[in-house]
């Protein structure tokens, strides 16, 4: 049972624990969720979104803006 003797050595356990620590947290995992884009890509998407929004120009008027402003004032009053 020489192999079990080796496995029981503390330095072996420390080595395995250190190895686990390094392989479980590499740079790919850390940056996986962070989506990024270039300025050109941003512009293309921005124009797509603003063009869609521009089509809805008739669905908003000054009456809605006034209501939104009143809503903002009421919210600010509640915060004071």
């Amino acid at each position, binding site marked *: 049972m020489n192999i079990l003797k080796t496995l029981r050595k503390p330095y072996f356990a420390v080595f395995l624990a250190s190895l686990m620590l390094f392989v479980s947290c590499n740079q790919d995992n850390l940056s996986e969720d*962070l*989506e*990024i*884009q*270039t*300025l050109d*890509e*941003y*512009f293309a*998407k*921005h*124009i797509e*979104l*603003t*063009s*869609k*929004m*521009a089509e*809805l*120009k*008739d*669905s*908003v*008027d*000054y009456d*809605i*803006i006034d*209501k*939104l*402003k*009143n*809503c*903002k004032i*009421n*919210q600010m009053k509640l915060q004071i």
Partner: protein
Amino acid sequence: MQNKSDETSDLELSLKNENIEISDKIFELQLKIIENTRILYNNPKYNSLNQEEFLSVIKGEISNQFENKQKFSQRAASCLSDFNSANEDCLTDFAVSAATVGVIGLFTSFGVGSLIGGAIALVRFGECNKSAQGDLADCRANQ
């Protein structure tokens, strides 16, 4: 700290309580504009910039892209080409205003203030577009 979806549902509730009917599409598109801005800000090239610096980069890019587009599109002088040019100016202004709303929404939070900004920009675009259409009608009547 509230997350973005909590903020959005709180905002929807406030609007409902005040009987404000904003199209879901406008709501959704404004959120997408802010999300698009956030993805650009994640780029290490820009994420050390403050709000003003970041907005300045975006405004510069929008102006440059529209200027280049106008430079390369050769138009014969006509009522329609004048209208297209005027409408493009309206779109440029709207794109810059929407970008400003996106940057402010990113650095602060999406709330009534952002919706007011977006709504004002949209109403102004509508007025600008109507004015361009009026000029087109006048131009055609005078031909």
